């Protein structure tokens, strides 16, 4: 369990850190002044969350068999456990909104599941993180609806950005088919849900926003069960379970003329 918990905290901290950097890159260039200031505030939040999580790596490292050294310190860390979608600066505002709506909320689902964690330092931080994340949810939902409402190329660009991040975000919760006994994080009480349950919670959180905005992604609402379900299989054959990321697809070569 120690190794799994170390990995969870590392990828939470690293993704928070990089997401904060990506948000910060837009703090003077969002479509409106208000959104720019909000981007700066969200960047501060994310970087603060990362800053609060990194010291836990020092605590968890010995039991996880990880050397306490520069690689677990935030100032000298180089091996980041981050999503491919965050590896490069956002290409446009739709990418920002997609990351805010999908990736930020996926990270938040982990904190929701860690509020009563058996690892108390994570539980305590989770409660504080969730207070600050409320504004991020409102921002992502509001902007997704607004961009979709523009229609045409703006809506298409937004849908494209969401689709590019969709599979990786869903895979990021962890392998499919694990039950509470076989998933080390659920089994130890570090989280109160298995990866499949986390995926279901996340779909229930973002599904209504996507539907309200008319952004068609591979998810549907089952009126009988009330659940939000995927309508397309996830690319598990490409999923890098050791790095917790989905490698980018190789660019399609231009056909020979």
């Amino acid at each position: 369990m120690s190794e799994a918990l170390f990995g969870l905290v590392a990828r939470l901290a690293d993704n928070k850190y990089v997401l904060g950097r990506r948000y910060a890159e837009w703090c003077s260039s969002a479509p409106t002044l208000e959104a720019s200031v909000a981007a700066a505030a969200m960047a501060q939040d994310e970087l603060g969350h990362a800053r609060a999580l990194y010291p836990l790596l020092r605590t968890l490292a010995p039991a996880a068999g990880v050397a306490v050294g520069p690689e677990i310190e935030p100032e000298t860390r180089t091996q980041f456990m981050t999503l491919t979608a965050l590896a490069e600066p956002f290409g446009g505002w739709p990418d920002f909104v997609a990351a805010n709506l999908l990736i930020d909320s996926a990270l938040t689902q982990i904190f929701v599941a860690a509020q009563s964690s058996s690892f108390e330092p994570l539980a305590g931080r989770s409660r504080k993180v969730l207070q600050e994340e409320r504004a991020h949810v409102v921002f992502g939902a509001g902007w997704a609806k607004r961009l979709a409402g523009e229609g045409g190329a703006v809506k298409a660009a937004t849908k494209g950005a969401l689709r590019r991040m969709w599979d990786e975000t869903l895979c990021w919760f962890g392998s499919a088919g694990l039950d509470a006994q076989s998933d080390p994080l659920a089994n130890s009480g570090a989280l109160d849900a298995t990866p499949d349950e986390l995926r279901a919670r996340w779909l229930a959180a973002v599904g209504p926003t996507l539907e309200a905005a008319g952004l068609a992604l591979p998810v549907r609402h089952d009126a009988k069960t009330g659940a939000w379900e995927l309508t397309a299989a996830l690319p598990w054959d490409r999923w890098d379970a050791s790095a917790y990321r989905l490698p980018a697809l190789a660019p399609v070569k231009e056909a020979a003329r």
Partner: protein
Amino acid sequence: MTMKHAATKTTSAQGSAVAPAHTGKRLGTERVWLVLARRAYDEPLRQIGTVEADDSDLAGVYARSIYDEFAWIEMVVIPRDTLITVIEA
């Protein structure tokens, strides 16, 4: 990992990253919201500024992030177009 700063982006503060560049069109039709706040219980709410937002939730997020210079005990937003003029300036 590349941590290149996006200083080379050509976006403006008026939405050229998403709106068609040739139209110069600003995204959406935003409502103006008055932001009122107070710092102590014995003070009245007073207007501290405005924000532009599509809905009250987003207006609240914007107001909190822009006007965070004090530890306000209360902050409200109200659509400017709902005010009724009694004495015109």
